[in-house]
């Protein structure tokens, strides 16, 4: 967003020494200075808002994360002292509950991200393709219907899911008709991968339980999402697929019919057209959806807060919820802020990785190459 604002500024419009600069360098300089001043004036409200609501809170949080602030009065008052990296050390280096909870929360959220991001992106793209087809009657209706979960408040959606997935709820009743005994969704802490492993006869091998990372053994890292986490994953996919469908739609409308027709003339089937034409042409939208999805899923908080509170057996704990629990529950504000910054680091790393992966693989050239 910041780049767009800068592009709108008149500041850089006239390069020095350009053909229009007849009255000498001094005048051009003055004009540019005036334009720059006007530019700053026009952007001042936005800049002030950014500083007050973005920069200052981040600086405050950064200070809290290296301080011993106890949550009473201003964090900048004289009674608050710096503790250096102690809060980070307690989370990352010192074995104990703080470290173990952070490890568990990262594990839980990692499985959430690994499942939600690809599935919601695929579903959103599928919905967008279906809705963008001209042959479909009542497209407006379907577009609204698919988008509806996204505009519904997450509190309401969470409440509905609490009822749906209750032990004697609709889902289990439906499974019961099919002769399946549904699990106790919100209170089943068993990891999916552990369940598969125990089905294959593997139970906590010593090689994996002996060592670990962040106070969580490798065996527990490999637990997979718990049954309770799976319900949160389903909820997330269901609510956000509609939003991302909206981002895919304009990208799909932008693909010129001529390209499609040319491909058909060249004998490309539907799958080839999707792989070699649609996907490369909507790459910017895909990148946006994946990035937003990645950031949003690492920050998941409200469903955890409303539905599971990190239970059962801390298998739905997420760093965002842990930061809240440690700050407001435990009153350890420094550690809570430190968790938030660790989460920030994780998000940056994942976004950069995803950027590298997406940039490495072809672009529009794919289309040209295919046509040649």
């Amino acid at each position, binding site marked *: 967003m910041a780049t767009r604002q800068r592009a709108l500024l008149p500041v850089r419009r006239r390069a020095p020494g350009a053909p229009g600069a007849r009255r000498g360098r001094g005048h051009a300089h003055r004009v540019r200075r005036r334009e720059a001043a006007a530019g700053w004036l026009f952007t001042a409200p936005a800049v002030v808002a950014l500083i007050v609501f973005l920069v200052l809170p981040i600086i405050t949080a950064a200070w809290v994360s290296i301080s011993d602030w106890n949550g*009473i*009065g201003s964090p900048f008052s004289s009674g608050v002292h710096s503790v250096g990296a102690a809060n980070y050390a307690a989370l990352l280096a010192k074995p104990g*509950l703080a470290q173990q*909870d952070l490890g568990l929360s990262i594990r839980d959220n990692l499985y959430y991200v690994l499942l939600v991001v690809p599935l919601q992106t695929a579903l959103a793209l599928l919905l967008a393709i279906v809705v963008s087809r001209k042959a479909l009657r009542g497209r407006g209706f379907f577009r609204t219907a698919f988008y509806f979960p996204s505009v519904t408040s997450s509190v309401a959606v969470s409440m509905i899911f609490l009822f749906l997935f209750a032990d004697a709820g609709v889902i289990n009743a439906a499974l019961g008709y099919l002769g399946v005994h549904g699990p*106790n969704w919100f209170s089943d802490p068993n990891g999916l991968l552990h369940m598969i492993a125990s089905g294959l006869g593997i139970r906590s091998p010593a090689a994996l339980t002996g060592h670990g990372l962040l106070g969580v053994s490798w065996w527990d890292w490999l637990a997979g999402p718990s049954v309770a986490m799976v319900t949160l994953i389903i909820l997330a996919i269901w609510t956000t697929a509609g939003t991302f469908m909206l981002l895919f739609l304009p990208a799909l409308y932008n693909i010129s019919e001529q390209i499609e027709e040319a491909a058909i003339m060249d004998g490309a089937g539907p799958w080839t057209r999707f792989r070699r034409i649609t996907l490369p042409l909507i790459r910017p939208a895909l990148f946006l959806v994946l990035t937003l999805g990645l950031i949003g899923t690492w920050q998941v908080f409200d469903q955890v807060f409303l539905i599971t509170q990190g239970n059962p057996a801390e298998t739905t704990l997420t760093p965002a919820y842990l930061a809240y*629990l*440690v700050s407001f*529950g*435990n*009153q350890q504000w420094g550690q809570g802020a430190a968790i938030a910054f660790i989460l920030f680091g994780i998000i940056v790393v994942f976004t950069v990785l995803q950027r590298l992966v997406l940039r490495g693989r072809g672009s529009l050239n794919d289309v040209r190459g295919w046509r040649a």
Partner: protein
Amino acid sequence: MKHGKAFLAAAALGGMLVFVAACGSGGSGSAASSAGKVNKTPLTLMFGSSGPAETKAVDTAAAAFTKQSGIKVKVIAASNLTQQLAQGFAAGHPPDVFYLDPGSFQNYAKDNALYPYAQSLPNAKDFYPALRTAFTYQGKFICDPKDASTLALYINTADWKQAGLTSADIPTNWDQLATVAKKLTTGGRVGLVLDNSHSELDEFLYQNGGTVVGSNGKVDLDSSQNVAALTFLKKMLSEGILKFPPSLSSGWSGQAFGENKAAMDIVGNWLVGAMQSDYPSVHYQVATIPAGPTGTAATLSFTNCWGVARSSANVAGAVDFVKFLTTPQQQMAFSKAFGVIPSLATLQSQWQSTFPNLAVHTKELAYAHPDIALPNDTQALTSFDSALTQLVTGNPATILQNAQANLAPLASQDG
């Protein structure tokens, strides 16, 4: 925590509206008036309500105080008291008077944010000792307990008769408890339900001669007595005569008891209100909590106190307000309105004659231990609870050792 998830969510929604409405009605009053005059700066009272009955009773009490003293009181029913209190303290404008749970009490007392009024009031000795202990920090009694709750044994009388049991069979020790739980367990119903939280399970540790926090203030969770107590619970769980609410698809033990998925429940007197409003047709009896194998009687007590912020603009008015709220008349009014037990030991006989069916709860206060509360304990207790939830497959000794390792350092910072 004790009212179940669905209730919390509903309360959150309702409370949010109240809070928003309350916020809209003007800020706090002017600064303190000149010397010599009585400080009439308006007060703010923030509390977490269990329902409309409690909200109305607190509103009425605040209005009565305003009439008597001339000090205006703004009443805020918080949707999430712990969080909203923390926000108030962080912003430097906490409410003047507020409900405070023993865990948060430890945090704020450690940070010297509470005005310690209780010790010097003339009625300091009238409160039950177990409740006073919960609000004593470094030997100083800080704030007045608001009310009291203890755990007792609730029995579904219809199930009891159906199983051929009589009043002579009411269990007084663990063996008898297990025996009747077995008799009461049928196909669709379990004999005993307990909430899967330390707040409803720790009494077994005390009953077995163990402690959670000893009289020296040190955490002593991993003793052999405690391991034996958890092993006893684990045995009942694996025999299927004791279940936790999630495996009965209930949000909390009271729901399982009310829906008759369980015949007995060891729970606090907050169950009474829920039975009245949600399951009025279910008949039950309240019995004294069974003692341990060696006859040690023990239960857990729960309470909140009336906290007063040290930074209040009208500390004297706030203390007067608390004095008003803890008078015998006002405590009996609260009892009648929403079923809490008065915190004044001096009211015991009057209360017992008014509510004879609940007399058990106050009699138990003589041997009650306060539920564990240490500074910054939320994370450690959450972890302990989630381990207890897995008790049927877990190892009691490991569970207690982990909890000991997490909680012991918190007690030592208590000085």
